[in-house]
């Protein structure tokens, strides 16, 4: 989680200690509360965590939809990403793309699929009126949609089809960094496998980096190189994917893995046992003192509700924040 300044050059995106609070009548929602991580070139970093823990907000801050309250985000070691998207150069806008969590609302209802996917091609001068059809067809093919979708409107699409169109649109301008916010949540396992294979292939060919936000640990297992776990605005664990599934350290992570409904015996066996999901979900307006997970943690000790757990660096790039490992 903490990296020396000199290491920025190895990373396409480095986020250090960003905060984003939303002020409302009831107080300040501490959506992102001191988060640091870096994404390597050609890497898929999975951002996993509790619902409402600030994953989407983190993605939107990187996109420049709203600036962070504090902290720093660097792109390719030089570009400052705390500036809003409107002030970014056209080239920078092309390089950083996002697939939104609610694909339905991000597609212009008045445009056909061809215009939706074709728009970024035209904005960035990647296709003209004669070549746009063929390129859109190719992008749709990447995600497994046929040409019969070209002239459909968003309201004529099923949930998964909207998601596929949103992915095709994000890939259209050849981004270098792509934020995928729950990209396959509406896809069946077969379409999902195809999309994941496509994303992997494009990554190999173009060295593109992905920040993958997801609740689906099967997807994480299959395409992420590293995983970070967020809980209530903070990062509690970080590890390479294999390590993460084999030796999860943080109690929340163990609870996550043991709550996955599995399909096969092999999957059942790899799950940690006996960490049942219980307890009250804490408030983001007044997060619990100490470790924010202590209200739900089966292993909590007295100190957990007193002070923030320290960052413990274990082997193989595995980092955890928990008093158990002190």
């Amino acid at each position: 989680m903490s990296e020396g300044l000199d290491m920025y050059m190895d990373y396409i995106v480095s986020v250090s200690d960003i905060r984003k609070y939303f002020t409302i009548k009831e107080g300040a929602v501490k959506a992102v509360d001191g988060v640091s991580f870096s994404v390597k070139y050609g890497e898929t970093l999975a951002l996993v965590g509790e619902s409402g823990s600030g994953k989407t907000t983190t993605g939107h801050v990187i996109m420049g939809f709203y600036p962070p309250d504090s902290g720093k985000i660097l792109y390719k070691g030089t570009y400052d990403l705390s500036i809003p998207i409107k002030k970014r150069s056209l080239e920078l806008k092309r390089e950083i793309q996002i697939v939104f969590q609610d694909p339905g609302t991000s597609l212009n209802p008045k445009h056909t699929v061809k215009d939706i996917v074709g728009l970024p091609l035209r904005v960035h001068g990647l296709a003209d009126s004669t070549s746009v059809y063929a390129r859109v067809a190719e992008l749709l093919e990447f995600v497994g949609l046929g040409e019969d979708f070209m002239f459909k409107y968003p309201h004529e699409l099923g949930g998964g089809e909207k998601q596929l169109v949103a992915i095709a649109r994000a890939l259209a301008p050849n981004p270098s960094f792509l934020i995928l916010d729950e990209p396959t949540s509406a896809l069946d396992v077969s379409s999902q496998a195809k999309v994941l294979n496509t994303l992997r292939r494009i990554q190999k060919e173009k060295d593109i980096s992905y920040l993958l936000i997801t609740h689906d640990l099967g997807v994480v297992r299959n395409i992420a190189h590293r995983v970070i776990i967020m809980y209530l605005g903070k990062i509690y664990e970080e590890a390479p994917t294999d390590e993460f599934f084999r030796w999860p350290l943080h109690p929340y992570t163990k609870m996550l893995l043991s709550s996955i409904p599995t399909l096969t015996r092999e999957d059942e066996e790899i799950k940690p046992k006996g960490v049942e999901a219980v307890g009250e979900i804490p408030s983001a307006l007044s997060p619990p003192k100490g470790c924010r997970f202590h209200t739900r943690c089966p292993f909590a000790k007295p100190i957990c509700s007193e002070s923030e757990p320290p960052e413990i660096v274990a082997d193989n790039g595995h980092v955890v924040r928990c008093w158990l490992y002190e």
Partner: protein
Amino acid sequence: MLLNIQDLYVHYKSYWYIHKVLNGVWLRMMEGERVGVIGETGSGKTTLLKSILRILPQNAVIPNGMIKFKEIDMLKAGETELSMVRRREIGMIFQDPMAALNPVFKIKDQLYDVIRYKLFAEGYNPTKEELHDHAVKVLNDVKLPDYERVLESYPFQLSGGMRQRVMIAMALISAGKLLLADEPTTNIDVTIQDQILKLIDRLVKQRGLSTILVSHALGMVRQMTDRAYVLYAGDIMEEARTSELFDHPAHPYTSLLISSAPKISTREIGEGIRGKLPDYRSPPIGCRFAPRCPYAMDKCHTIKPKRTIINTDHAVTCHLYE
């Protein structure tokens, strides 16, 4: 019987074409039963659920079929009868929470409305305090923290999973008899999902609630349902007790679908089923899966297979079994 769907056809009209989606679907369930529906993206699962509630989009037509909920013929029922059913008997968790919630109203107003309509339908007129207490209770049930903030929020101020839980709460209010859950927990982490699934299971046991669960998360379908249907391109391809369906799938499509599921025990991703769903403007005349099926025979391309019973509670629609 709680719900009986027979020979249901649904077509979508667009300017130039007719998309022939549901192609003679059936589904039967008893009171207290938990039924799953699985199938690829675009197979018509949402279309099926929406036709039960009669809330299909305007360009949809139902040229043929029967949907009977208890004694009510849903395809012939009038608006008053339908709204009674929607307010207190059948609740639906929509796949896209953002589209189901109204962006310009606070959660409070939307939730109060659902509660008020349900109580009206039962002949009771609640006070403001009662509405508030009821709302807080249901938000607690779906494990939403900060309920005062949530009530005062507009949908865009909540995270994806928080919106989804608000919607689950609304659906549970109206689901006196039957809960239609369309991908109910896609935006919620598995620890909270686990708690919500347990809540639904408790309602099944206590209130005798029945559920239809549509989900791509096959592990969840396995855990949460007693029987399941496989829908492909608008046709029911297989139905069986859930454990039998996953352990001994009979239809080639079902086997291929199950084997595409991502696993946490390996890094390998399946290939997915080759090919794509048919074009609904001119779907195959025989078995709709024939163009993609590794076992397809000549007659598969010309004759629509019939439902064949191969075991207790296990039926399959495939020429290999006729």
